């Protein structure tokens, strides 16, 4: 049976330096500000661990775990992403999914290209009124990161832990 491989690609342009963007992407303290309160911790070397800790009240999401596959400071980070799957979905997985951050300096801006690949159709959420799903989650996280870098203040999604937008 042919397996459908899904990938999600998202590009944004941020008025900042590659060094500041890299620092913000790889810092636990900054990630809590823009990543819905999740804390992203990474040991920046090939084989280094990645841990994404949920904030208080969202422990049901569990820790995401991963491993660094590539690390070029201020330019590229590739890491694996371990989903918290139900047993049915876990059976369909063909290996871990992979996240890539590519940083390209462009004068006073930096292009950030995010690629999340080796996904399943189940990782994509059709309902646009929630932040669940790779396609809904990443644009919110990256938009918030951009606001943090350009304004000093991340976006406030008013998350109460249920993952829905309306309130």
């Amino acid at each position, binding site marked *: 049976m042919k397996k459908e491989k899904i990938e999600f690609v*998202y590009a*944004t342009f941020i*008025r900042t330096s590659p060094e500041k963007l890299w620092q913000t992407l790889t810092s636990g303290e900054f990630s809590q500000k823009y990543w819905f309160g999740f804390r992203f911790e990474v040991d920046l070397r090939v084989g280094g661990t990645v841990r994404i800790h949920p904030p208080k009240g969202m422990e049901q999401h569990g820790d995401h775990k991963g491993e660094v596959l590539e690390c070029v400071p201020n330019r590229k980070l590739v890491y694996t992403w371990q989903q918290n799957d139900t047993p049915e979905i876990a059976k369909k997985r063909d290996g871990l999914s992979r996240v890539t951050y590519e940083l*390209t300096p*462009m004068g006073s801006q930096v292009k950030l290209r995010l690629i999340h690949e080796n996904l399943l159709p189940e990782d994509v959420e059709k309902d*646009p009124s929630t932040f669940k799903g790779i*396609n*809904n989650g990443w644009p919110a996280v990256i938009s918030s990161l951009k606001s943090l870098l350009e304004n000093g203040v991340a976006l406030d999604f008013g998350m109460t832990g249920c993952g829905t937008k309306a309130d």
Partner: protein
Amino acid sequence: MKQPELVYTTYIRSTPKKTWDAITKPEFTREYWGGLANVSDWKKGSKWEHLTKENEAWILGKVVESAPPKRLVLTWADPDQLKDESRVTFEIEAVEDMVCLVVTHDRFKTGSKMAEKVGAGWPRVLSSLKSFLETGKGLNIFCKHD
């Protein structure tokens, strides 16, 4: 072969009205859209133009749907290739103290040359729009890699 479709979602700390105005008022689009203006009365059936400072149209089209400040649907074509027409939809939704802006560019003709161009263009323009609304200053959308 499946027709390409671009969907770009961004969250902007702004209001639906300010976001609508930024897309539809020439004095605002010039600030973040590389100096180009979006010109129309934005009524259903009216034409719209994407004009340079010298009033040269880079894009032409018609307004298909207009429901300010939430939804705008336009046809989109290069004046030199009018048959290569596609469609752009702007959807603006209030979320907390922000808007969720979703831009969909679809209905490309088979073999469209436009599809490839806009894939690279929209992230630049929409990133610049977000910077404009949040900081008062857009980005240089024609910036090249260092």
